[in-house]
């Protein structure tokens, strides 16, 4: 299906909308729709079977405009509040992966009254002492100019998986896909490169405000955001249904095991 561009004040946002039912706002990660893929993936299709899926691209990613006045968590929160205004969405279910999970958590602690239920998948955003997230920027520098094995290992369940090789091939890939990955890393460098590295130190102290029902999902072998972050989210969110660990999956667990993750979410949301 094709995306469309919507205008949010002076910015454009690339967005997918699919399915009917209760609205679910999906905030993407790196190895995900808008991050590497120009189209919805099987996981998003599965989610859209039981809800109205709304999947915008973060500022700078996949054709969305960059922000011109700052990239702090507060700036991104306002960006999404303005997008929600534009869409006329008052309350919604919120699902986020990776940095999308971080923004989802930021929205949930700021506006708990609007988030009906919250799902975080391999989400960064927390500072957990001794458990740093991987340096995605270092791994994005290919060895010998062409080899992205260690970057694939950060996102997937090993350096040479089929999905990893599909989305992060060695050498020069398709130009549009290369550009999309570049945009994603550029977005990453705006939001999470300067210390803090994809975290907001005070977020953990604010989690108590996110009183909606919540679920945390993690790949067993997440090499990007250590499992300890999943445990910290599950512990800090006051109404959490716990941490579900998906065996045999890496950071992009929703790409690697789309049906398993979609089922976990549907079971949770149906509760």
């Amino acid at each position, binding site marked *: 299906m094709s995306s469309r561009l919507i205008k949010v004040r002076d910015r454009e946002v690339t967005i997918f909308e699919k399915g009917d039912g209760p609205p679910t706002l999906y905030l993407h990660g790196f190895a995900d729709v808008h991050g590497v893929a120009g189209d919805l993936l099987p996981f998003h299709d599965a989610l859209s079977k039981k809800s109205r899926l709304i999947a915008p691209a973060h500022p700078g990613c996949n054709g969305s405009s960059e922000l011109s006045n700052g990239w702090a968590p507060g700036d991104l929160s306002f960006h999404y509040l303005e997008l929600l205004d534009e869409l006329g969405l008052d309350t919604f279910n919120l699902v986020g992966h990776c940095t999308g999970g971080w923004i989802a958590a930021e929205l949930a602690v700021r506006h708990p009254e609007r988030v009906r239920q919250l799902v975080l998948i391999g989400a960064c955003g927390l500072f957990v002492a001794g458990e740093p997230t991987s340096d995605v920027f270092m791994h994005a*520098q290919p060895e*010998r*100019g062409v080899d992205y094995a260690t970057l694939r290992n950060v996102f997937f369940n090993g350096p040479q998986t089929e999905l990893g090789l599909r989305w992060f091939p060695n050498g020069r890939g398709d130009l549009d896909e*290369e*550009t999309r990955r*570049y945009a994603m890393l550029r977005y990453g460098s705006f939001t999470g490169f*300067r210390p803090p590295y994809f975290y907001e130190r005070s977020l953990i102290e604010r989690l108590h405000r996110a009183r909606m029902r919540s679920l945390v999902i993690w790949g067993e072998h997440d090499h990007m955001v250590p499992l300890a972050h999943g445990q910290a989210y599950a512990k800090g969110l006051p109404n959490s249904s716990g941490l579900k660990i998906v065996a045999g999956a890496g950071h992009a667990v929703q790409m690697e095991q789309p049906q398993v993750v979609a089922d976990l979410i549907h079971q949770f949301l149906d509760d």
Partner: protein
Amino acid sequence: MTSPVQLYCWHFMSYPHLAPDFDDTQSSGWVTVPNSLWDRQKARGLYQQYIDQLAYADEIGFDGMVLNEHHQTIYGLGPSPNLVAAALTQRTKKGKIIILGNLLPLHMNPLRVAEEYAMLDNMSDGRIIAGFAPGSGPETFNYNIASAPSRDQFWEAVELIRKAWTQPGPFNFEGRHYPLRYVNPWPLPTQNPHPPIWIPGARSRDTLVQIAKHGYCYFLSSRSHGKETAKSVQQFAKVLEQHGDVYRPHRMGILMSTYVAETDKQAQDESREGVWYFLKNCLKGHQRREGRQLTFGPGVPYIPTNEFHDYLKFSDPTTPLLGDTQDWDDLQKSQSIIVGSPETVYRRFIDILEHAQVGHLLIQFHMGNMKDELTRKSMHLFATQVAPRLREDSVKLFGRTFSDLPAAAGMEVVK
């Protein structure tokens, strides 16, 4: 009156005591290269040797000495070039001291740079050339300076420093990154209104526009010089024209490396060890495909996304870089490190000048682990047998092309 090409001695101050198996055992000479390899005993006297070589350059008639800032690398042991510059103010009398440059986003407050450069300008009686740079790939990692957001910060820092030197203080600076209520540096620089400002760039149009707007000098940060160098000059000339200015040779500088000996053969024999130590070790992680190159890759970008798309069309990630050079023939082609007799070196340099019409040559003599006596011999041969010819011929050369222009401004040191 046309000025001759300015010839400077650039010292990178590499770490020369790596074991012969360095290339086999280490993936990079930058950022992550373990500092357990630093030998405290062998390193004693190293800075003294390098400072002495720079003082020697001044003594034998170079137009100046060039220093730059690098961190956590064997390529250049100059995290604080201002300290070496301070030493040079006391050891030298004539040549310019070019600091190319202080990496502004790495400083807590650029006002400190304005103050230190002003001190150096006073200590050297007006011989400082003030370079400012934003830092590049390695700084992304060793100082957490992400290129994309740091550009804006960099240009604001340059503006703050320029104003600190030219606008009577105290004044209020309403910067986004460096808001300051009382900008009022003591001392002011000796040079009036301020030392010449040089900015390195690698063909980014944004950078050229800023340089053109403010009358700065453009240092092309590239190690290879072929047709691309002439193209860069044309690109800069065009941007200058769009800003109501005109290109002159002394508006631009390039980096060259050379080793001069009595004959071509002797030059190769004497420089072989130093040159290949430099290529294989110092450039590993920087300008070599082997290992993990940190200089310009995805994730440390500053060019906008749409420009990156265009860049991809014309770049090939498998093209060999300078550090991948295998033999002397390869090296010849790169037009980067010129090794030979005085006659050979003269011909190669004048050829580059003819094509590129650049007024400042910043020349690296010491490479890798080159011995002190060889470095000095090469410098001396260059100063006595190559430099005079280059100066004389460059006056004619520049005169032919630029004779109808008014006297060069901006680049000249105003005392």
